[in-house]
């Protein structure tokens, strides 16, 4: 059998986290290799080309396109103000002149004698990229961006909405199985990343948005509430561009299910520390999962990395069932039979035997489990 692996979400107490911060188009990098930065530091900036406006000058003046050059007051590359004349006809003996004003400020990009169009480009708009995490600049891509590196806690969620946020971690529940009720959220959580337990309901999320929390990290959430939050049924899991003041990260999935102990305990141990989170999720080619990064005061040498290693399932591996009928249950692998087995659905699949935390034993498709680190 070829090497089979079961992908799991990363939950690392201490690891080296590197983040590429790239401009969408070439520009200027404003930091140097070795610089210490905070999440808010600007690392690169550029100008996005302005919008384009097309004006059919020939048709506005009732001329054939090839006559356009004779009436143009501007040539390609010239700057122009809004309402300034682009072209003017001579009229009769200097009377009845017709002119075409520019609909915007910008520059004349081109003049076509085939279509009679004049293309104007509006002034460019500036954009800046910040560092997103506290750390050190370890690599520069000239004119494009940087890599920021930090040593810290790194936790991946399964699904999220809302883009990059930073804030202090505030754990408001007693344990991973406790739901995050609205009553647990107060004004004191403004700008904080609230860690809940098993589930957040609509009123809890509303309260977090009201007080201006930077984010919520919780086990589960219901799909009808997601629909309400986004104002549409999410068809494909590509998120991160939502205009939400509070990012939401689910560590387990949809429905009510306790956050994994390891994840919860780790977040609890980082309470009060500054974290950078990103709800952006892309479950397509180039999978992106939401993440929580908590930079720590440590250097890269102190980390014994197992990064990039894909561990296979072994007897004793800690797993979580990720599909009915045991969805959300945690357990340890007790057997890995080689042959295909028939499920209740009559599907023939590769399986594993698991003993759940409550002692129950079950045969599960290998595709329906997720490995949990630690």
């Amino acid at each position: 059998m070829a090497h089979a692996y079961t992908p799991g979400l990363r939950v690392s107490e201490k690891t080296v986290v590197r983040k590429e911060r790239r401009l969408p188009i070439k520009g200027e990098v404003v930091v140097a290799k070795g610089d210490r930065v905070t999440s808010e530091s600007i690392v690169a900036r550029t100008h996005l080309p302005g919008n384009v406006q097309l004006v059919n000058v020939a048709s506005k003046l009732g001329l054939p396109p090839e006559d356009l050059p004779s009436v143009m007051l501007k040539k390609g590359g010239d700057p122009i103000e809004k309402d300034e004349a682009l072209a003017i006809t001579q009229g009769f003996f200097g009377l009845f002149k017709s002119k075409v004003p520019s609909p915007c400020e910008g520059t004349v990009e081109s003049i076509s004698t085939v279509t009679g169009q004049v293309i104007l480009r509006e002034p460019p708009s500036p954009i800046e990229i910040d560092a997103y995490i506290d750390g050190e600049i370890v690599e520069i891509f000239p004119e494009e961006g940087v890599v920021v590196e930090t040593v810290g806690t790194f936790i991946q969620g399964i699904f999220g909405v809302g883009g990059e946020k930073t804030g202090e971690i505030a754990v408001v529940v007693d344990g991973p199985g406790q739901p995050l009720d609205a009553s647990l959220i107060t004004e004191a959580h403004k700008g904080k990343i609230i860690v809940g337990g098993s589930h957040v309901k609509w009123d809890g999320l509303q309260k977090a948005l009201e007080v201006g929390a930077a984010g919520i990290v919780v086990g589960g959430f219901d799909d009808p509430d997601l629909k309400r939050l986004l104002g549409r049924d999410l068809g494909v899991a590509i998120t991160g561009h939502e205009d939400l003041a509070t990012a939401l990260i689910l560590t387990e999935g949809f429905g009510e299910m306790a956050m994994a102990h390891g994840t919860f305990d780790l977040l609890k141990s980082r309470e009060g520390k500054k974290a950078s989170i990103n709800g952006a999720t892309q479950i397509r080619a180039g999978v992106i999962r939401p993440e929580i990064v908590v930079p720590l005061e440590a250097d890269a040498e102190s980390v014994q990395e197992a990064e990039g290693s894909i561990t296979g399932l072994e007897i004793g591996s800690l797993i979580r069932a990720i599909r009915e009928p045991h969805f959300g249950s945690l357990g340890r692998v007790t057997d890995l039979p080689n042959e295909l087995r028939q499920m209740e659905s009559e599907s023939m699949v590769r399986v594993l035997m698991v003993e759940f935390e409550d002692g129950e034993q079950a045969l599960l498709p290998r595709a329906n489990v997720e490995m949990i680190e630690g």
Partner: protein
Amino acid sequence: MSENGKIKAIVATDCGSTTTKAILIKLVDGEYRLIVRGEAPTTVEAPFEDVTRGVLNAIREVEELSGHEILDGEDIIHPNDGTRGVDLYLSTSSAGGGLQMMVAGVVKSMTAESAERAALGAGSIVMDVMASNDGRLPHEQIERIRHLRPDMILLSGGIDGGTITHVVELGQIIAAADPKARLGAGYNLPVIYAGNKDATEEVVKLLEEKTSLYKVENLRPVLERENLGPARDKIHDLFMEHVMAQAPGYGKLMGWTDAPIMPTPGAVGSMIEAIANRQGIEVVGVDIGGATTDVFSVFQNTFNRTVSANLGMSYSVSNVLAEAGIDNVMRWVPFKLPELSVRNRIKNKMIRPTTVPQALDDLKLEQAIAREALRLAFVQHKNFAVSLKGVQQERTISEAFSQSASGATLVNMMDLDLLVGSGGVLSHAPRRQQAAMMLIDGFLPEGVTRLAVDSIFMMPQLGVLAEVHEQSATEVFDKDCLIHLGTLVAPVGTGQEGKPCIKLETTLPDGTAVNEDIPFGEMKVYPLGVGETASVKVTPARGFDAGAGPGKPFESTLSGGVVGLIVDTRGRPFNLPTDESERVKRLDKWAAAFDAYPTS
């Protein structure tokens, strides 16, 4: 490459977005047969970022299962020496999102639609269709091009000798957007110009410096005719040169293959086209994947392909719910399930797309979703597979009354001879009866239609193989790829439950005589195995048409399959009862007729 006659062993892979599938074909007793199939996760993403890892893993599984040595370390042993190695290695790919294109044409329903057909036929996902009359302002079109970042753009417009103004305007819009390619920051976006030849010079002036511009023959040289071949071929070339070459590990993979890597849907499409041409029949094929559903058809000798980019069974499963609506999905579920539970289950499948249904109820829910995905994808296909629009037609008086306008759909379900299903949910359904039911409910064939599924989803590999060695592709396709499910007889018309619908008279191969009046609202399955045929007389009741016309009987020799001879008198158009308990009762009754699910 070896000569055709000497080819004894072939390995072919299909690098999908989640799984890489390998098949081994060998010459056994003078004919080509599938030996084994292996699969492994695709490795385009981190931490591997090298597609060849997944390819090697899948081939290694083939080696282990077949005992035929193919690899020497990380090299494919070439050629086959009788005991080890292969003579041909080929591959298709849809990994990394496949081929994503934007197309442009002057008139939305004419040249833009022809351009879309060319791009889809080449196996691409069309991200947007831009046209001079698409209702968007130029700055909106420019914004869209910048935002989308396609792999390439196909620009068409104008018939040869016609006005050049509009197509040049489109060129200006593309130039103003200064588009960037999706992959690889360091190269120019490929743009194929396939429009009015008289505008070529102007288009070159506009786009030559800003893009990698390629010129091919006009894809609509005259209104009455499309010429899609040159544009389609150029798309394939550029897919290899630009898109594949940028994807991780493909440079290496391209060095291994004996023929160019084809986009997966392009390969499946050429297989479907080959079936239709070889047998002289009207065919519909569907490939329902995790992210997308492709529908292919050949009607009136015209090949069409559509891709429903966001209808699928894993990545896009939630979008099926969003587009179909919860009621349409739940109408196929033969038990009660709270909406909250359905919604959460579907979202959990979306975020963990590789899970499989373990419980029977979960399987039934998944197959309910599949029916809706198939239905929606087919609606899109019917709307796209149309005769050329804008063509003047000469009509006789009688035709003028029937008003078969230009732009009418080519898809005629009554003329459909063969419906082929492919993709995990159909090919891997635990019972073939389930696949038959999903195909019938999703497509609602009319009259007499043969049903089949791709046994293990190997049409992509056979499609690319057919390009270089047709004999082996054809032999494996006929013997090992298609699983014939049987023949469906489904009269058109509606009636009251229990009232007469059709009469069926035949003698089955085991000698059983059938002389049955089948009332409206039933599903019946008669044993008629693979390779068996039966002479069947079908007499529809008044108001029903089973293929020969309303109320007209006919006799025909029908072929069997692993399911058998199927009669569906549920009516066309088809409606399910709105009363929940009645609906569940009927779903259970129809499933029982097929013996589709285990009974507890």
